[in-house]
């Protein structure tokens, strides 16, 4: 009988990452193309607006506020839910532990968050160098982000993407464990929690002080402050997945 040493934890985690990236289109190329596609659409719309305006001058901040990047960010929640749903039964079904799978999946998500976070920050830098793609357009660093240095944008985007992907991971674990009913309950609970929180704040009359507190923080500080939420989501996802069984 052939024998071998048990692969180290690091190798097992890397294995799960490689499974996720077996088809690099799913997590890398398609999201990148979607991001560029959304940008392309916005770029086209800006030109439509410029064309319609003709000789009339636009307001200087006409293209400063754009939700396209936010849209891309939330798209990663879907990517995370799907990645987990698609690969859990495959990987654990063939013979991986749930722990190795979850650690490897988390590592994959962190890697994606860094790749796309830094990538979007660099594109924001390019956006500035080109005076907003030559037409004062702001896509990769709209509104308040326009004034932040690129390195801060990289951290903020990475943290935001990681947060969203771990919320997606928790959602994916819920789906793997309890199916679509679980997912509906999961996102329903988040909504209910948000409403309950806003009620508590209203009831206590704390909106003003909360607003002051948030306004007094930089975007970077706020991004760092979401870390505990990310940790809770990541831990919750693992707790759910530990008792899940692969389909098939």
């Amino acid at each position, binding site marked *: *009988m*052939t*024998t*071998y040493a*048990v*692969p180290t*934890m690091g190798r*097992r985690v*890397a*294995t799960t990452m*490689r*499974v996720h990236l*077996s*088809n690099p*289109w*799913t997590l890398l190329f398609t999201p990148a193309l979607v991001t560029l596609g959304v940008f392309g659409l916005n770029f086209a719309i800006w030109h439509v607006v410029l064309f319609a305006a003709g000789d009339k001058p636009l307001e200087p901040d006409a293209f400063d506020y754009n939700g396209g990047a936010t849209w891309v960010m939330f798209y990663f929640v879907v990517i995370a839910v799907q990645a987990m749903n*698609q*690969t859990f*039964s*495959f*990987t*654990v*079904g*063939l*013979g*991986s*532990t*749930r*722990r*190795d799978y979850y650690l490897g999946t988390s590592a994959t998500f962190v890697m994606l968050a860094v790749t796309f976070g830094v990538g979007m920050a660099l594109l924001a830098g390019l956006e500035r160098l080109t005076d907003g793609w030559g037409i004062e357009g702001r896509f990769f660093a709209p509104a308040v982000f326009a004034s932040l240095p690129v390195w801060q944008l990289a951290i903020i985007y990475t943290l935001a993407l990681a947060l969203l992907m771990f919320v997606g991971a928790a959602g994916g674990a819920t789906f793997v464990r309890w199916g679509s009913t679980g997912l509906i309950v999961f996102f329903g609970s988040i909504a209910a929690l948000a409403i309950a929180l806003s009620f508590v704040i209203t009831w206590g009359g704390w909106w003003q002080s909360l607003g002051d507190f948030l306004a007094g923080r930089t975007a970077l500080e706020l991004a760092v402050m979401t870390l505990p939420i990310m940790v809770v989501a990541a831990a919750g996802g693992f707790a759910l997945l*530990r*008792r899940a*069984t*692969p*389909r*098939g």
Partner: protein
Amino acid sequence: MTAVIEAKGLTRHYGKVEAVEDVSFSVQENSICGLLGRNGAGKTTVMRLITGQEFASLGEVHVFGERPVENAAVLTRTCFVRESQVYPDSFRGKHVLRAAAHLFPNWDADYAARLVEEFRVPLGRRMKKMSRGQRSAVGVIVGLAARAELTLLDEPYAGLDAVARELFYDHLLADYSANPRTIILSTHLIDEAARLLDHVIVVDRGRVIIDADADSLRGTAVTLVGAHAAVERFAAGKDVLGWEGIGGIASVTLTGLSDAERADATAAGLEIAPVSLQQLIVSRTRNTAQEVHS
């Protein structure tokens, strides 16, 4: 011989459904064990318990001397391929093999490539667009090329044509001889697979009803055919598996006949015919069904 798998009182309930009920058995190292039984008998659940994918309600199973649940030391030495294996939607055949190469430390890429040739698997096609047979072939290739010390194949060749099935049997035997390992194979095509099996475990309604060496099992059961009265007289008090009668002629399937008893049967004018593994299991599992319904 050492036992690779040892199950003691293994039980899995889903609500009130007893999928696996108080199952105890062991599987020896470097053997091919057939896990046989009807649909819904509990074969897949037993395999899922062995690989730690399902949690036991009661009892326990040890694999390589350890509990398999969340045990990387056990699971990295294990490969489980099932008929209903789930593949990610975006995966083409080549992605499955790429992932498998990472998942299984003993993966043999050259062997996998040869098998792809022989089974004529369209690696560039998406898994969900493949025919059932092609998907099964991918599973079979993963199961063989993984060279895992413990390989579980659950109905691995559903949808494979006869040529591909023969190919699978030949490869399994050849590769098993060259790289001995422990293989558990569940299948409906009992007679086809019979020649592969060293050991047979038959489950019915979540319980083990046969746990025996394949050779001894093949020898044990016979069918006696003769005059109704003579058959009835002979069968009295013996372990009767099945009974059929047409007019004055009856046939009975028995196990545990000694050589002396065989001689007696011949002397009594009864004809002795061997019983195939499949017939034996069919009569066994049909009987338990009748007992319950009558």
